[in-house]
């Protein structure tokens, strides 16, 4: 190759090696991609440049295998007449999307995965995941006000799984608690498919005024570029570990593949950045350094600003000595930001950072043209058109193939299985409640400070968390929920995607909220496997359809692929998180029954499906059947009915039916502060229905309302109007017993609620408590 304008030799001789096919492969680049790099540069890249291209064109940054699918998501709200909910910053435009919530205020939120780092080092992996997503939010100018997380682990019987679970929860708790952002919710599932492949998805939401929105764009030639936050070390070079091994005399042992977080540093950075951004006109652009750190932040800001950028690595604060350009550009050290400041106002930012005992280092400036130029000791070590890194990355339409097992699982029927009788039922409920996926997650969330900032209205444990936002002299209430049942997606990724959205919206409706927008985290296996890609494609199709149908725009998200090991890929897990607004404080609704005499109304009827249920898995060891059917219009009617009943003042408690079905849901409604019981009379059940499916099946589109004494008729009438099947199935009692009576099946059972609650509440903590630390609890 002729190499016009070749760059001078790198100051570090180890970087001046010939780029061999082997090196290219080990950077995860295909031969065709390498050719494209050469065309872009008009010469061979040097090793630093190769590293830069490899991270920017990785799946993580370029979404090369998933972008065509992501483009199918609606990114705007179709209904423009709504008083709030307009998308102010769209998915993909910036580090996080922004949604109008009225009165000049907005929220920014996004979810991000840290699956692979958490598998290697659960504590630090999860902690830095939280740190990373918080930065994505405050870089937009928003003050972070809540965190949630979606976690998936293997079977809790395994010691390895326990170690991962304990480490991940401790890591999240460590980071969130210290930085002072409440962790108000999340979800945790345990399933074999996550053995060895834990998922850790963290979400942050922040608030800001419309006029405080900041962009990650480098504009204004001559404006200085500042580096703020923690110094750069050789953290996270594990992704390019070959380089660590070959390019340094220092031993591999000194090169941690995991990043370590410092929530204290991030708290200072957060406060300093918000203080700086509040000064009018001072900050031109700002971007956090996440994965691909300095590389990503420099080329992305330049690309968004249609400008060039030049930085000098000698000015970059460094924690270690002798770092070369490759290492500095690819380091994933945490708690760092890049800020473009208005020229002539350097002193102002320096003073703010000094107040917080931090340094703001001027590392470069915005330049004319389109090039990202990196120098070290004055020597140019990389010179690349910035937009080629962000816009010209490869794009692949992967092959999809329906997995063979689907034909079999879809065709399955429960006919061979014995149905429940009274005796079996008696044992089944407490066991269901003790299943780790259903059991109380108290062991998890009591380790999270979920009350700091003093705005948590509905604490973890209910269908959705509700947080009061303090907005100047105004208050607003947001509800948030994370959902995704990987088992449904395994059995039918398209339905699974739809269900994830439907369930999230059902949770919001039960809390009294109107949905605003969603963020998703697509966790899948290797996309080069057609069966895996099929799952990804179909899940996204289901999600996108549901988003359109419900008119809930996608404001951002994250894709995590290659979640697999020698035993195969994880179940497709497109985690969704939807945020809703509750217009009046009086409409905030919890899932706990409040007093004897309330009527229990089942909305959505008894479809009686058993496929994909926990019951089937738990009692029969079967992960099979058709995933529950989805009727989007029926769902919408259900949500509207729930909200209407809440607004009319009839509803004391509302709870959606999901994992574990009807009896699980009723039990959970009795686990509030006041000891209560319930009497269920399940007459009029369909003749052909199986009892197991009726009581524990996971048909969608259903919810339970506990309505004020005397309000049952009004609610039934309301449901009749909206066309949602509704039945009065029981009553809340003073006696703390749950009694179920199915006269037509000659089946009856009853349980002490305290016993059920004990099973449910202590299941996870009894597995996780370490000997010698006798557990003592209040509350």
């Amino acid at each position: 190759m002729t190499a016009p304008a070749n760059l001078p030799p790198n100051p570090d001789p180890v970087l001046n090696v010939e780029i061999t096919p082997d090196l290219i492969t080990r950077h995860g680049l295909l031969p065709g991609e390498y050719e494209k790099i050469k065309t872009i540069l008009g010469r061979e890249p040097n090793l630093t440049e190769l590293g830069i291209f490899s991270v920017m064109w990785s799946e993580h940054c370029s979404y090369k295998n998933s972008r065509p699918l992501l483009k199918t998501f609606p990114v705007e709200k179709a209904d423009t007449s709504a008083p709030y909910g307009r998308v102010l910053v769209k998915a993909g435009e910036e580090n996080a999307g922004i949604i109008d919530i009225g009165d000049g205020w907005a929220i920014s939120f996004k979810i991000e995965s840290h699956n692979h780092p958490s598998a290697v080092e659960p504590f630090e992996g999860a902690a830095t995941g939280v740190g990373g997503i918080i930065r994505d939010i405050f870089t937009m100018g928003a003050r972070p006000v809540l965190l949630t997380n979606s976690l998936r682990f293997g079977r809790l019987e395994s010691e390895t799984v326990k170690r991962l679970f304990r480490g991940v929860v401790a890591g999240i708790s460590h980071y969130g608690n210290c930085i002072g952002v409440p962790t108000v919710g999340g979800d945790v599932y345990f399933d074999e498919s996550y053995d060895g492949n834990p998922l850790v998805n963290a979400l942050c939401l922040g608030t800001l005024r419309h006029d405080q929105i900041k962009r990650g764009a480098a504009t204004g030639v001559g404006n200085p570029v500042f580096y703020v936050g923690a110094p750069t070390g050789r953290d996270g070079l594990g992704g390019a570990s070959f380089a660590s091994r070959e390019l340094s005399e220092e031993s591999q042992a000194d090169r941690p593949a995991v990043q370590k977080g410092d929530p204290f540093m991030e708290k200072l950075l957060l406060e300093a950045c918000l203080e700086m951004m509040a000064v009018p006109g001072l900050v031109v652009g700002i971007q956090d350094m996440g994965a691909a750190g300095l590389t990503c932040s420099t080329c992305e800001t330049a690309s968004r600003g249609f400008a060039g950028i030049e930085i000098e690595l000698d000015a970059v604060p460094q924690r270690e000595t002798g770092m070369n350009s490759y290492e500095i550009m690819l380091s994933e050290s945490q708690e760092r930001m890049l800020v473009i400041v208005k020229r002539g106002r350097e002193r102002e930012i320096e003073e703010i950072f000094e107040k917080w005992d931090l340094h703001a280092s001027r590392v470069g400036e915005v330049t004319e043209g389109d090039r990202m130029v990196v120098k070290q000791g004055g020597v140019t070590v990389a010179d690349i058109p910035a937009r080629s890194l962000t816009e010209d990355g490869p794009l692949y339409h992967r092959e999809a193939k329906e997995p063979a097992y689907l034909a079999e699982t879809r065709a399955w029927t429960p006919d061979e299985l014995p149905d429940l009788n009274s005796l079996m039922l008696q044992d089944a409920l407490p066991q269901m409640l003790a299943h780790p996926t259903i059991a109380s997650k108290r062991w998890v969330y009591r380790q999270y400070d979920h009350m700091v900032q003093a705005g948590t209205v509905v604490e973890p444990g209910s269908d959705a968390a509700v947080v009061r936002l303090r907005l100047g002299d105004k208050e607003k209430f947001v509800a948030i929920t994370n959902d995704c049942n990987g088992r449904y997606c395994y059995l039918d990724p398209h339905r699974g995607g739809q269900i994830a959205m439907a369930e999230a919206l059902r949770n919001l409706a039960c809390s009294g909220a109107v949905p605003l927008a969603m963020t998703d985290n697509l966790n899948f296996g290797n996309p080069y496997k057609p069966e895996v890609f099929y799952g990804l494609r179909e899940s996204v199709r289901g999600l996108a359809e549901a988003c359109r149908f419900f008119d809930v725009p996608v404001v951002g998200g994250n894709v995590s692929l290659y979640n697999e090991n020698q035993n195969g890929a994880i179940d497709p897990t497109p985690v969704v998180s939807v945020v809703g607004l509750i217009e009046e404080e009086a409409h905030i609704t919890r899932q706990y029954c409040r007093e004897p005499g309330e009527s229990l109304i089942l909305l959505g009827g008894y479809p009686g499906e058993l496929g994909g249920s926990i019951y089937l898995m738990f009692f029969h060891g079967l992960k099979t059947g058709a995933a529950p059917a989805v009727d989007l219009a029926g769902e919408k009617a259900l949500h509207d009915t729930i909200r209407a009943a809440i607004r009319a003042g009839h509803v004391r408690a509302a709870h959606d039916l999901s994992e574990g079905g009807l009896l699980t849901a009723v039990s959970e409604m009795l686990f509030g502060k006041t000891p209560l019981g319930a009497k269920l009379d399940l007459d009029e059940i369909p003749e052909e229905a199986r009892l197991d499916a009726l009581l524990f099946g996971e048909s969608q589109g259903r919810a339970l309302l506990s309505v004020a004494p005397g309000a049952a008729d009004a609610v039934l009438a309301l449901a009749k109007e909206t066309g949602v099947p509704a039945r009065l199935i029981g009553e809340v009692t003073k006696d703390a017993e749950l009694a179920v009576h199915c006269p037509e099946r000659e089946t009856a059972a009853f349980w002490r609620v305290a016993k059920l609650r004990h099973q449910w509440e202590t299941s996870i903590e009894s597995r996780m408590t370490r000997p010698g630390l006798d557990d003592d609890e209040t509350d």
Partner: protein
Amino acid sequence: MKIAVLQFPGSNCDQDAFHAFADALGLPAEIVWHKTTSLGGADLVVVPGGFSFGDYLRCGAIARFSPVMEALREHAANGGRVLGICNGFQILCEAGLLPGALVRNRTLEFRCLTSNLVVEDAGPDWNPQTVGQRLRLPIAHGEGNYRIDDKGLAKLKANQQILFRYADAEGNPTPQGNPNGSVDNIAGIRNEAGNVFGMMPHPERAVERIHPSLDGLAVLRALTTPAAAGASS
């Protein structure tokens, strides 16, 4: 009564405390940065919760050397009131303004929940509720396990320095009701002179209708009621 809420790097309950005093109690309050050396004539100085200096080394160990601590000592020495909440309690213990120390929770895990407390007889200025009555206040800490030697404990009792103790659902200070392993279920204390208060529970998280209880109001009111004559000498 003027309130100063100190702010250290890593404080994260400073705004909550500010709002509790300013909005819920309607008192004049301001946030005071730790590098300041004056308390601006405050009557009550609040050392808020959080993770001052990241809680590195030991909780509160580094904060006690901040410039503002000199002024705080002087304020306390002159009989001015001081309230340390959570990390603030840890800072006051580290600074020697309160006896004892706070170590890792017995379970080694962070605990966030609404705890039951019983109000102890701690002298004439301490009247958030009738002695023996129960309060429900949030706690959120990893190192709230109060430790003091036997002599010190005897002294706390003799001088009525214990403010509240953790209790079970029935209101008894049992081991089951103890979330962190504190000696004698101690959740809050005051100094011998009666003007410096420290507590692990967060009264500022229990002052609004949306909070788990409103019991924080009684606690904060008790602390902002002018001291009875002689109590703070």
